C-alpha cells in the first residue's frame, strides 16, 4: 500500500494542530512541521531502531514517554516535545553516552561536526554528573581508507543499518551485550581483512560521532555527506 493511500490523521504537537498520514512517525511529522525533536540513532533513509531514546516525547493522557522515531501518529494525539521532565531525561541520556566511552572533543576528527556534541550543546549539557568509565578500547586502522575508533562509538547502529539496508553487504554488526557491546566487521575480524566490505564508505558518512572516519583527516576535519541517503533509500524501494 503506498503512503498516499494512508489515512490522514490530525493531532497536536506542542499545541499546534498538524495533519499527517497514519503511517508516519511522530519524528517524521515533527520534522515536516519544522518542530525539532533531538535524536541520534535515527537517520532519514534507514530503518528505525529507537535505541538512543533521545527523541522521547510526552503524549497527554498517558504517563509513559514514547520514542518519537518509532511511534506512529494516531488521530487526536496531543504531543509535548519539550518540557522540564524531557530535558532532564535527555540530558541524562547524553551524560550516559559521554561517560560510557572516551569522548574527547578537543582532539576528535569530528569536533564541530559531531551530532553528539551538537546535541549536548543544544540541550545545554554543561557537565556530566555520571562517573566516567574510561574503558580501554581499540582503534582499528587496518582498513585502507577508513578507521574505526571504538572510544567514540555510541552504538547507534547507523553503520550496521546502512551497510545492511543500502549497501546490502552487512559487513557491520554488533557483538557483546550492554556496556560490553562493540560494532564489529564480519566475524569480529580486523576491518582491513573483511571479505564483505566494499569500501563504499556509507558507514563513515552516516556515523554521528568521530567513531568512523576517513584516514588522513586531522582534528575537526571530518565532516559528513549524508544527502545521498534518502535518494539511495528511494532507489532501493523502487528496485524491491
Amino acid at each position, binding site marked *: 500500500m503506498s503512503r498516499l493511500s494512508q489515512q490522514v490523521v490530525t493531532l497536536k504537537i506542542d499545541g499546534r494542530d498538524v495533519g499527517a498520514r497514519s503511517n508516519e512517525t511522530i519524528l517524521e511529522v515533527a520534522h515536516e512541521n519544522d518542530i525539532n525533536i533531538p535524536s541520534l540513532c535515527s537517520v532519514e533513509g534507514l530503518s528505525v531502531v529507537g535505541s538512543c531514546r533521545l527523541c522521547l516525547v510526552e503524549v497527554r493522557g498517558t504517563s509513559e514517554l514514547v520514542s518519537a522515531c518509532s511511534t506512529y501518529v494516531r488521530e487526536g494525539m496531543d504531543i509535548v516535545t519539550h518540557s522540564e521532565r524531557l530535558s532532564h531525561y535527555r540530558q541524562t541520556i547524553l551524560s550516559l553516552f559521554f561517560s560510557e566511552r572516551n569522548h574527547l572533543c*578537543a*582532539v576528535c*576528527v569530528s*569536533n564541530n561536526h559531531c551530532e553528539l556534541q551538537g546535541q549536548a550543546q543544544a540541550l545545554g549539557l554543561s557537565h556530566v554528573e555520571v562517573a566516567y568509565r574510561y574503558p580501554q578500547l*581499540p*582503534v582499528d*586502522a*587496518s582498513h585502507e581508507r577508513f*578507521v574505526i*575508533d571504538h572510544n567514540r562509538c555510541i552504538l547507534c547502529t547507523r553503520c550496521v543499518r546502512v551497510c545492511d539496508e543500502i549497501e546490502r553487504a552487512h559487513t557491520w554488526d554488533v557483538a557483546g551485550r550492554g556496556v560490553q557491546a562493540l560494532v564489529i566487521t564480519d566475524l569480529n575480524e580486523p576491518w*582491513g581483512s573483511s571479505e564483505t566490505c566494499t569500501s563504499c564508505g556509507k558507514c563513515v558518512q552516516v556515523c554521528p560521532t568521530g567513531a568512523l572516519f576517513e*584516514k*588522513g*583527516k*586531522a*582534528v*575537526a*576535519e571530518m565532516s559528513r555527506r549524508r544527502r545521498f541517503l534518502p535518494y539511495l533509500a528511494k532507489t532501493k524501494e523502487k528496485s524491491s
Partner: protein
Amino acid sequence: MERTITIDPVTRIEGHAKITILLDDEGLVQDAHFHVTQFRGFEKLCEGRPFYEMPSLMARICGICPVSHLVASAKACDALMAVQIPPTAIHLRTILNLAQLVQSHALSFFHLASPDFLLGMDSDPAGRNILAMAHSHPTMARDGIRLRQFGQQIIEWLGGKRIHPAWVVPGGVNAPLSEEVRDQILADMPEAVSIVQRTLTWFKRTMNQYREEIQTFANFPSLFLGLVNSQGMLEHYDGTLRIVDAMGNIIEDQIATQRYPEIIAEAVEPWSYLKSAYYKPMGYPQGMYRAGPLARLNIIHSCGTTLADEEWVMFRELNRGAVLSSFHYHYARLIEILYGLERIEQLLHDPDILSKHVRAFAGPNNREGIGVSEAPRGTLIHHYRIDERGLITWANLIIATGNNALAMNRGVLQVARHFVQGQQLTEGALNRVEAVIRAFDPCLSCSTHAVGQMPLHVQLLDAQGTVLDESLRG
C-alpha cells in the same frame, strides 16, 4: 646543622614548581633544587592513537605555546608521511610560529617579568604584578597587552582561534592565507614594531640598575643549543642544530635534526618530573646547555633582518664570547620579538604566500618521524614511532624548558648563594630566587597562567625536617 628552605609554589611562572635551598651547618647555601611538581604523561597517553591526531593532541600540552607543539608535531608527522610540504605551507607555518613567539615573549616580558623591573625586586609582592603595573606604568602595561594581542590576533586570523588552532595539519596547513588577512597583519605591523623598539630603548637604559642581578642570575659558562639556517642565521621553523661553547666557539654544527639523539640525551632526577637534557658527548651533568632566546642569539652569525641585526650587534657586545648571564634572556626576548615581526612581514610579501597549494597528502610511509622547531623557550623535539597502520607506538618529547633544567638549577644555586644569607629570608632574596627562574620563562604546566598573587610557601627546615621558621603569603 643542615637546613632546607623551600619556596613553594614559585610565582609568576607558567606552571607549578617549588624551590628548595639547603643550608649547611654554618647557615651558608650548600645546594639548591628547582622541582617541577606536576606530571603530564603525554608521551604515554598518545600511544595507540592515529598519527594524524598528533598535532592537535600534542598542542593540548600547552595553552601558552600550543603553536610550538603543533608545528613540531606536524613536522614529525610530515616525516612519517615522507612528504615535502608545499613551500607556501612552510611559510605559513613559520608565520604562525613567529606570531606565537611574539605573543609568548610579550607575555613573559611584560606580564610576568617587567613588574620586577618597574616596581623593584624588593617591593611589596602583593603589588608586584601586571595589574599594579597598569596603574603605575599604564603605557608599558598597554604596550605589553597590545603586543601580545597582536601575536594572538595573527594566530587567530590564520588558524581560526587563538588557543589550540587546528590549522596546522600533517602535510601542511588546511586552508590558504587570504589577501584580507595578509593586509590586516601588515596594517597593524608598524604599531607592533614601534612598541618593541621603545621597550628595547627603555630596557637598555634600565639594565644598569640590575648589575648585581646580571652578575648572579645564572651567569656562568655553559653550552648553547639551537637551530640555525643554512647561512648560520636565526631560524625558528627549520634548519640544523648548532651548539656553541661559552666562548662562542662552534662545537657542533649542521647536525640534521633527525640526528638529535647523537648529541642530546635526557637524565631523570628523583626530585623533579622535569627531565634534564644534556649534551651527550660531555655526559651528565657536565653537558649542561642552555636553549631559548639567549642561546639562539648566542649561536648565530646574524639575525637576518635589519632592525633585529642592529640590536643583535649591541647585544653581542655585552660579552666577549657568548652572553652568559641568564638575566639577558629578557633582552634577547625583546630582540627576538623584533626579529619575529620583521620576518613575518618579509614572508607576507612573498609572491606565493597566497598560493592555494598548501597541503600534501599521504599515508604513513615511514615508521619513525622527528620534528624539531624553535619554541619561545628553546628547541622543541617531537619524535614518534608508528605501526604499519599509522598508530603511535612510542613517542619522545624533549620540551623546550627541559633543555634548561640543569642551567635553572645552577642558576637558583648561584642566586641563593649571593642573596640568601643566614637564617633570615628577605622578600627581596626570595623574589630574586624566583626571578632567576622567571628569566628562563619556563613553561611548566603548559597551561594558561593565572594573573595575580599566587600563594608562596616558604619553609626553613633543619636536617630532620623540623620546621624552624615559616612564612605564607597570598
